[in-house]
Structures are given as C-alpha cells and as structure tokens.
C-alpha cells in the first residue's frame, strides 16, 4: 500500500485516539442502549413464538449488540469536516493539494473507523456476550466476510456523507439535508429494528433501491448468518456495488463542484 494512504489512515486513527474519554463515554451509552433494545426484541420474539422477522433469540442478541458496536464504526451521524471547510472556503486548500480530497478524506475516515473498531466496537460486543450470549456463526468463512462487509459499510457511509458535504457547494445551510440523512439512515438502515419486520415490499424496496441497508443491516445479517452463507455473499456483493456507484457519484459531483468554484470564484 502506498505510503500516503497509510499516513492518512494513521492520522485519522491518532486523531480519535486522543479523545479516549469521549470513546469511553460513547461506548457506555452504546451499552445502555444495547441492554434496552436487547430486552425489548427478546420479549417481542418470545411473544411471537421464539423469533422475530426470522431471527431467533441468540441471533437477535448478536443483531443488537453488534449493531451498537458498529454504530460508531460506521458512524453515520457525524458529518465530515469537509462540509464546514466548504462553508468557510478552506476547501480551496484541500483542492490545491496534489492528492484528490476524496481519497484524503476516505483514508482518514478509514483510520477513524479502525480506532472505533478496537474501542467502540469491542466494548458492547463483550458486554453483550457476557450478559446474554452471542450467536456463534456456523461457518468459519462468516468471520472474514463480516469484516469485509463492515469495511464496505464504512465506505458506503463515508461516500454518503461525502456527498452530503459536497452539497454545501450549492446550499448555504446543509442542516436540512443532514437532518433528513440522520432520520432515514437510522430507521432505514436497520438500526432501530431488523428491516425484516417491515412489510415485505417495503424492505425489498429499501434493499434494492437505497444504500441504507448496506450501512448496518448487511454486516449484521452476515454476522448472524441470516439466510446462510449464500445470502451473506449476496448482500456483501450488493454493498460492493453501492460502494462503486457512490464513489463514482462523489467524483462526478466533486468535479462539478470544482468547476463551479473555478467559474464563479467560490
């Protein structure tokens, strides 16, 4: 791997590593939410005869606790610095560098996700395992596939947030877009409840037409082996398609943004 990428990722990792207190506080909050969601879903499953939306008890436990862990790794709620830099005009400095800011931000964000993986992800997963007992995957292949799926989820989320930041080139106040994103990415990604609970047509539309399930539901389904290994490979492939499409969209939109900047002088 070229030198620059490693350095950028390391910088992203270190930047978050300085906020250890914040990481601990965030993990604590994830654990509290984990307990609540876990109990709620288990009760619903018990009343429904042992399973909800095709997930059995231990699968639900894993769904909840891995979900709480992934929340900070995927990190859909914090916007990139880029938006603020576009607003203040500092973005010009980013564009003058010999490396495309898309890659700069991407590698930095991967570094951040790496730090979240070894802190924010581990804590809820360990607590969930001790308090409830997690689902143990049957196939060995599920473990590496989960890591790949998680990495792809981080990339999908990054590309979405990058696109949102880029809208700041055209809009003075991007809070509206951000707010819309926070609502939809929470509910439609499978964070609050498994998407399988929704009516079949709605969850199908979400999976096929939107990138949201690729943020949370996809890696979680891989981890609990919902629909077996084949299904896992399918959703991971779907994530890959979204990564490619969204990154292409980022490049295209950025290209137009830069042209606008050059033509109109910011």
């Amino acid at each position, binding site marked *: 791997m070229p030198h620059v990428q490693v350095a950028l990722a390391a910088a992203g990792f270190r930047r978050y590593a300085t906020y250890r207190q914040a990481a601990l506080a965030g993990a604590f909050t994830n654990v509290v939410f984990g307990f609540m969601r876990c109990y709620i879903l288990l009760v*619903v499953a018990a009343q429904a005869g042992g399973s909800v939306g095709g997930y059995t008890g231990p699968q639900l436990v894993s769904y909840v606790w891995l979900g709480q862990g992934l929340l900070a790794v995927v990190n859909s709620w914090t916007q990139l610095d880029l938006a603020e830099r576009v607003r203040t005009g500092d973005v010009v400095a980013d564009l003058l560098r010999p490396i495309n800011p898309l890659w700069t931000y991407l590698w930095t964000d991967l570094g951040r996700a790496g730090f979240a993986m070894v802190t924010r992800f581990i804590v809820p997963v360990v607590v969930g395992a001790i308090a409830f007992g997690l689902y143990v995957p049957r196939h060995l292949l599920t473990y590496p596939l989960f890591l790949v799926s998680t990495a792809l989820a981080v990339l999908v989320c990054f590309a979405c947030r990058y696109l949102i930041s880029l809208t700041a080139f055209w809009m003075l106040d991007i809070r509206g877009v951000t707010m819309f994103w926070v*609502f939809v990415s929470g509910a439609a990604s499978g964070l609050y409840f498994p998407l399988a609970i929704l009516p079949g047509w709605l969850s199908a539309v979400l999976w096929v037409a939107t990138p949201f399930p690729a943020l949370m539901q996809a890696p979680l389904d891989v981890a609990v082996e919902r629909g077996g290994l084949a299904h896992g490979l399918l959703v991971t492939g779907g994530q890959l398609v979204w990564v490619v499409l969204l990154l292409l969209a980022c490049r295209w939109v950025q290209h137009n943004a830069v042209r606008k900047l050059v033509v109109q002088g910011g």
Partner: protein
Amino acid sequence: MAESGVVAVYARVVGAQIRSQVQYRGSFLLEVFGSMVTNALDVATVFVLFSVTGGLGGFGGTEVLLMAALSAVCFSWGDLVMGNSERLREYVRTGMFDSLLLRPLSSLAQLTAITFALRRVGRAVQGLVLYVIALLLADIDWTVGRVVLAVLAPIAGTVFFASLFVAGATVAFWWIESGEVANAFTYGGRDFTSYPSTMYGGWFGDLFTLGIGFGFVAYYPSLALLDHPDPMGVPSWLHWCSPVVALIAASLAALFWRVGVRHYRSTGS
C-alpha cells in the same frame, strides 16, 4: 426579592433567546419540522414492534399507547426546557460560562433560559396531543385522584427529564469530553420509558425502573390510571408517587449543579 420579579426577568431572558433563534428563519422552521418527525418516528418504532404480536410486555394496544404517549410528552417537554443543556459543554470549554456567573441571577436559572429551544415546541405540542388521545382511548375509570394524576404525571415526568438533562450537563464541569454519558440516560431514558417496564429483565431492568426511577415517568402512572396491578409486584400505592420522585430528582440535580459550579475551572482564555 419578589418571586414574580424573578419570573419576569427569566421571561425576558427567554424572550431574548427566542428572538435570537428565530432570526435564522429557514433553519428554525426546518428544525421545528425535524423535531416533529423524530417524535413521530419514535412512536412509530414502538408500534412496528407492537404490530409483530399485537401486545408488548403483557399490555394491549391502548395501554402501550398510553405509556408511549406519556413518555413522549414528558421527554419532549423536558427537552424543550433543558434539552439544549449540552451546550453547557461549549460554555465550559470556552470559558463563556463566566458571563453567567457574573450576572445577578442564579446560574441554573440562566442555563435554563439559554438552553430553551423553541424549535422543539412543535414536538412538545405533538406529544401533548398524543397524550390526550391516548387518555381518551384508554379504558380509564375516572376518579378525582386519577384526573389529578393525569395532570401531574406529565409535569412530574418533565421535571424528571429536565433534572436528568441538568445532571448530565453538570458532568461537563469535570469531564468535558464525556458528554455522551448523559445521552445514555436522557435519550436512553426516552427509549426506556416508551415501553412497559415489564419488558426489561435482570438487574438492568430493576436499576433503570426503580434505581434511577424511570418507571415513575410513564409506566407506574399508567398503571395507576389504568388500575392495573404491576406484574412485577410493586405495591400499587407506589404507582402514584411520580411527583415525589420528580421532586427528589430535581433536588439531587440542583445539589449536583451547585457542586459542579464550585468545581468550575474557567479555562479557555
């Protein structure tokens, strides 16, 4: 000092705060709308889960609705009054908290004034409407006591959540970056109280329901209104105790605040 005078000054400071906020009209309207959607999504989530089995934790539709609505009204009003208190972190980090301490008003009252977020008013009204509908739909044997409780419970719950917001913000006097711990109890409390407490098991359920007192926000008052015994066996007189619990919570939060202010370090310059 006359109490009415204090209220008038407070009203003026809140008024100034509101005038500042509505200056950015586009953003303001957007956020009013956004907060209403959040509320609707919260209640919708409860009903997505409810729809799976047609009941939650041993309670039927109108009963679950009453608890979820009471929780929504308490949280949204607490949030309207104190929900911006996380801004204290910014005040402490930059040292701006100094200016609050230099005025001849209680610092806590001033915090309340500056954290008043009018944009959350849509959500608060929405919560209130939902609560009234839930009261009408629920099978309640109305007595004088229950009417009083139906009025007091949302007030007590609001005080309870406001106290949590204050206590959570106060943590900033010691640990600036740990603000998210407070979210576990404020936003976490909103989620917790949206469901019947019977759904939570183990030490976690006991700790949150009785230890921290979240059961007294929506669950116990709803049981008292519905004349429903507690499946977990808490005596029925306790179901009426939300106002007492709210007073205790408010006193503890105020005490914690006083200790916190003494600990303020006024850095940032």
